[in-house]
């Protein structure tokens, strides 16, 4: 019999038992839609994090004190006091294709202006900082090399800090504020940069020369991080490798000693952040995938019932010339039609749910095409695998026995 006829007969048989067919499909629908929705949510979240991190600049390289990849004790960022301004100078001198570079010293501090009072992150940097981050100035200007050299008590406010202390749309340059009880002159306000990944407001920062932060606020010589930008995005990984070499020489590390610093590109950071999410997504999708197997068993169960119920029909078909193969194909196609239809509806439903998540919770979703192809393939495979045994059972019937079946 032609495949077209076989399919038509299978569809007719399924249409005769609409309720049962629908319930059998439900297993596949739930399984497939769950997989699609979860993969969509996971991928969407991943894409958003990646985009946010890369928005910081794909040519950025960050060096932190301490080793985050070696096993054992993991200190917080900059916990180990190993980076110095000499490292910055060495990189500037010896690594080619470095465009801008700045050391970073961070602390939290109370900032007071008049009777306003705000706790914020105080970040000590060099003059290159706004150039590296491509961060525009709203009012006034960023501090100068001279300010850095003299460890001047000048401050450039992030937008949030400025608004908290002086109100929105106010130019506070020239005002004096107190940081940890020392007077600082406000010389500029940064433009808005907004949220970084994980809900961190980048505008809630006060910038000062790193020398000032080291000497006047923290009283120490070390720096916590170095941030630099490569001349272009393609040079980034070469720069990052060269930085490692220079740093090892600089810190006099012998062959075999682990790094006492960590060099990461924005790409690396994006990967680290998304890897955990990836594991989570796969785990959830895997659990949802189990429901596909449950759906498959449901199909097998119904097909077995169907074969028994239709024993006489099978006998009649065989008596007038159906071969075992014709019968087997008929039941197999029924199983595959159920699973594919269920899979198709599940995919549509999955897209729908992902869309709802985007619309109502503004949660970004992204269903990759290969997930759709896989869901479809999985559905077909489920139908074939779980439909095979019942179909074989039907095909193996003896015509006369099947005809006599009551």
């Amino acid at each position: 019999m032609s495949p077209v006829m076989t399919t038509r007969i299978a569809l007719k048989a399924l249409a005769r038992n609409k309720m049962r067919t629908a319930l059998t499909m439900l297993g596949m629908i739930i399984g497939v839609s769950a997989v699609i929705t979860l993969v969509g949510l996971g991928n969407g979240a991943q894409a958003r994090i990646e985009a946010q991190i890369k928005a910081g600049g794909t040519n950025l390289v960050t060096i932190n004190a301490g080793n985050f990849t070696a096993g054992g004790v993991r200190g917080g960022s900059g916990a180990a006091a190993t980076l110095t301004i000499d490292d910055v100078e060495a990189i500037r001198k010896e690594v080619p294709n470095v465009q801008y570079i700045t050391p970073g010293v961070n602390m939290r501090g109370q900032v007071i202006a008049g009777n306003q009072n705000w706790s914020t992150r105080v970040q000590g940097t060099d003059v290159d900082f706004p150039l590296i981050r491509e961060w525009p100035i709203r009012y006034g200007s960023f501090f100068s090399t001279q300010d850095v050299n003299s460890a001047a008590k000048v401050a450039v406010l992030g937008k949030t800090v400025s608004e908290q202390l002086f109100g929105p749309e106010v130019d506070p340059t020239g005002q004096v504020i107190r940081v940890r009880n020392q007077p600082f002159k406000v010389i500029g306000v940064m433009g808005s940069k907004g949220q970084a990944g994980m809900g961190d407001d980048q505008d809630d920062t006060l910038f000062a020369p790193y020398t000032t932060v080291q000497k006047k606020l923290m009283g120490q010589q070390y720096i916590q991080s170095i941030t630099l930008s490569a001349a272009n995005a393609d040079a980034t990984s070469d720069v990052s490798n060269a930085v490692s070499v220079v740093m090892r020489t600089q810190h006099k590390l012998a062959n075999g000693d682990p790094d006492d610093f960590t060099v990461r590109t924005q790409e690396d950071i994006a990967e680290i952040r998304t890897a955990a999410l990836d594991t989570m997504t796969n785990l959830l999708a895997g659990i949802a995938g189990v429901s596909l197997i449950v759906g498959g068993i449901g199909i097998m169960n119904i097909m077995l019932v169907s074969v028994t119920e239709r024993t006489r029909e099978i006998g009649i078909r065989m008596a007038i010339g159906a071969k075992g193969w014709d019968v087997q194909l008929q039941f197999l196609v029924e199983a595959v039609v159920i699973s594919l239809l269920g899979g198709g509806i599940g995919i549509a439903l999955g897209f729908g749910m992902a869309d709802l998540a985007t619309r109502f919770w503004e949660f970004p979703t992204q269903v990759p095409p290969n997930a759709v192809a896989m869901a479809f393939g999985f559905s077909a495979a489920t139908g074939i695998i779980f439909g095979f045994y019942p179909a074989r059972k039907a095909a193996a019937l003896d015509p006369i026995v099947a005809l006599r079946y009551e």
Partner: protein
Amino acid sequence: MSVISVRDLIKTYEVGEVKVHALRGVTLSIEQGEFVAATGPSGSGKSTLMHILGCLDHPTSGQYFLDGRDVARLSRNELAEVRNRKIGFVFQGFNLLSRTSALDNVELPLLYTEKSLKTAERHKRAMEALKAVGLSERAHHHPNQLSGGQQQRVAIARALINQPSLILADEPTGNLDSRTSVEVMGIFQRLNMEHGITVLLITHEHDIAEYATRIVSFKDGRIRDDVQVTNRRDADTELASMPAIA
């Protein structure tokens, strides 16, 4: 060469400890173009023989040659093909697919024929077969919307669709009133005389057997009698003289 030739056919069913001897050694030959009636009391083994002749069942022992071919040597698929192409089987209980139109039921054997026909051609042939049994107006009715006689005719049309050379009919008039019985016998007689199709018909009614050219009587799984019909009845003539039903 005989169309059907069986030798020492034995069929024994085992029901638990008990052995039921349905056929106890049947030897029989049927020639091309014959119209044979098999009669005998209920339980004498007629249906059992018919199922074996129809390639639906296997004998316990004995030989069966169909058109000179040893049926015991045919594979499952070859048997299916023989049932599909060579034999038109009319079952005692009709064996129509329920919830399927008369037309689709009649078409069914064509779907399992190797060389497949176009849908339109299949419909055409099924309609012709239904017309031959006088049931064109009921083509789209389901079996449960048809009377016993009409279902019987659908079953006959299905047996005819693939132009078989042999028709096996198991008590085709068993559930029919006398006029419908004569009509059905008329169909078989026409197939036999006009198309030269060999017909083997089971009946336990002796007057029905007289439409055949030869009567084989069974008793207890054996042939008791095998005679030519001297005064053959003709269904068409009888129908012409019957009063039409209002």
